[in-house]
């Protein structure tokens, strides 16, 4: 068995930023474990641009953003172990990993979970029909096209209008395929507006809202799909069904934080986010285990992943240095109209606390009100809010005083 102060599980944008922040906070003995050949995580296949505007003040592609952090990791001499897969983490921070070197056991003083998320697959969607070749999750297709140069099909239908689906609509079009339709079961797109404009409108790709794929056809290879509008219960309306011939169906139907390791370590999971329930330092219910990035909550922008990872990295380092704050914690709760609030609990400190949240559906002009009982801790107005865009609210320094027992975020619609 070997020992390291901080073990980071996952070498994507979250893991790298967390490791760098932990090092800069004063802990040199940090190691990053990743199952892929090189660090960078999902950014390696995200060759499009739009990364880094907030965090680095430059517009970068995914590989460039990853390279920036990889260079920061290297500059500090932080150890990275690639092709190394973590198979278990215990509540007392013993990490087991396998690689071509064999099985390694690492005793950590703090563990940072940064495993990211994975895509919801066809099996979870209950689409009727046959099981031909040509049905891919959008991210799998993205990897095949962008990393391996294999164009997965020529005539494509995309189910789901999340960002990966939109990005792939453009990618496939630029590579010479015809994207016949993007179908979205909800009455609005979950993707960023800029992606609707740049990926669909620019290439005249139709987006059908309140529409789903109701049947998959074909024996060896996909021959087409039936699409249909859905009713208010998201059930296909048979009278609207129509057949679209295609050889490829891409599924972009949601991302799920990958928390098998966390659960086995005894980390409590918030059903709303699918990730660990954490405090503002991103510490989970297991002392010494922190979480950040898409394994904690699915983000829209990598810039915010890096921010979150830095919080976790600094906090893990503070714990190793025995400088972590202590104090009473109170729970947070999303009010009506909110899908979730993170962190799920807040330690009362003198520092300001940032809350991250998502709304359940698109809203016009609204006001977020952060309350403790009848007391208002913070308010923030927004011209619009959409489920596809994470909101950030700040509880100012000194607001969390003795009387505060529970924090509720409420949403007030304004005329």
């Amino acid at each position, binding site marked *: 068995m070997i020992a390291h102060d901080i073990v980071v599980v996952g070498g994507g944008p979250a893991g790298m930023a967390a490791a760098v922040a932990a090092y800069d906070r004063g802990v040199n003995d940090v190691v990053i474990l990743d199952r892929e050949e090189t660090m960078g995580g999902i950014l*390696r296949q995200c*060759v*499009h*641009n739009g990364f880094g*505007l907030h965090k680095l003040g430059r*517009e*970068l*592609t*995914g*590989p*460039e953003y990853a*390279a920036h952090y990889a260079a920061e990791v290297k500059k500090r001499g932080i150890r990275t172990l690639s092709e190394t897969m973590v198979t278990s983490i215990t509540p007392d921070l013993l990490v087991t990993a396998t690689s071509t070197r064999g099985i390694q056991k690492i005793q950590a003083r703090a563990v940072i979970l940064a495993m990211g998320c994975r895509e919801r697959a066809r099996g979870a969607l209950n689409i009727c029909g046959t099981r031909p070749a040509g049905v891919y999750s959008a991210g799998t297709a993205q990897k095949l*096209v*962008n*990393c*391996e*140069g*294999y164009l997965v099909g020529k005539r494509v239908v995309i189910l789901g209008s999340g960002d990966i689906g939109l990005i792939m609509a453009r990618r496939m079009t*630029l590579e*010479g395929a015809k994207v016949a339709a993007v179908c979205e079961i909800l009455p609005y797109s979950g993707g*960023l*507006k*800029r992606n*609707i*404009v*740049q990926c669909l409108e*620019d290439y005249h790709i139709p987006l059908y809202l309140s529409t789903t794929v109701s049947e998959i056809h074909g024996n060896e290879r996909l021959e087409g799909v039936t699409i249909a509008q859905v009713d208010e219960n998201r059930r296909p309306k048979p009278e609207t069904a129509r057949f679209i011939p295609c050889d490829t169906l891409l599924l972009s139907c949601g991302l799920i934080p990958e928390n098998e390791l966390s659960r086995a370590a005894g980390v409590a999971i918030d059903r709303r986010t699918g990730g660990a329930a954490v405090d503002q330092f991103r510490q989970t219910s297991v002392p010494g285990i922190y979480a950040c990035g898409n394994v904690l909550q699915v983000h*829209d*922008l990598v810039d915010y992943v890096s921010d979150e990872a830095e919080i976790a990295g600094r906090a893990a380092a503070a714990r190793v240095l025995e400088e972590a704050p202590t104090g009473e914690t109170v729970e947070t709760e999303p009010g009506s109209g909110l899908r979730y609030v993170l962190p799920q609990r807040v330690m009362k400190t003198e520092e300001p606390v940032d809350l991250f949240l998502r709304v359940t559906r698109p809203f016009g002009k609204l006001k977020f009100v952060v309350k403790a009982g009848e007391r208002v801790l913070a308010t923030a107005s927004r011209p619009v809010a959409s489920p596809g*865009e994470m909101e950030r609210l700040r509880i100012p320094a000194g607001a969390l005083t003795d009387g505060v027992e529970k924090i509720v975020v409420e949403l007030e619609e304004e005329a």
Partner: protein
Amino acid sequence: MKKELTCIICPRGCALTVTENDGVWTATGNACPRGATYGVAEATHPTRTITTLVRVKNRVDTMLSVKTENPIAKERIPELMRLIHQTSALAPVKAGKVILEDACGSRIIATRDVE
């Protein structure tokens, strides 16, 4: 003349109204100055930064991610892609290397290293 656009400079996605009066275009609905610049440019002469891939000839199943160094005219995207599809790269490549000197008015540069 009046055009309704969605600003794509940042994820906020402001709804812009761009109007022409005696040959002068002005934008409203933007939350920042970059939005006004974008709105007028998009209404008069839309451009895009294109990110794409070229095959690495001397590596198995390996693609090099590339981008236009500057945004190019939107209507020239199909022409750019025809050019790109005729191009390949030779490893090793460093991010930032110029792959094409002039493609539709921009250099094409590598966005990652291939060893």
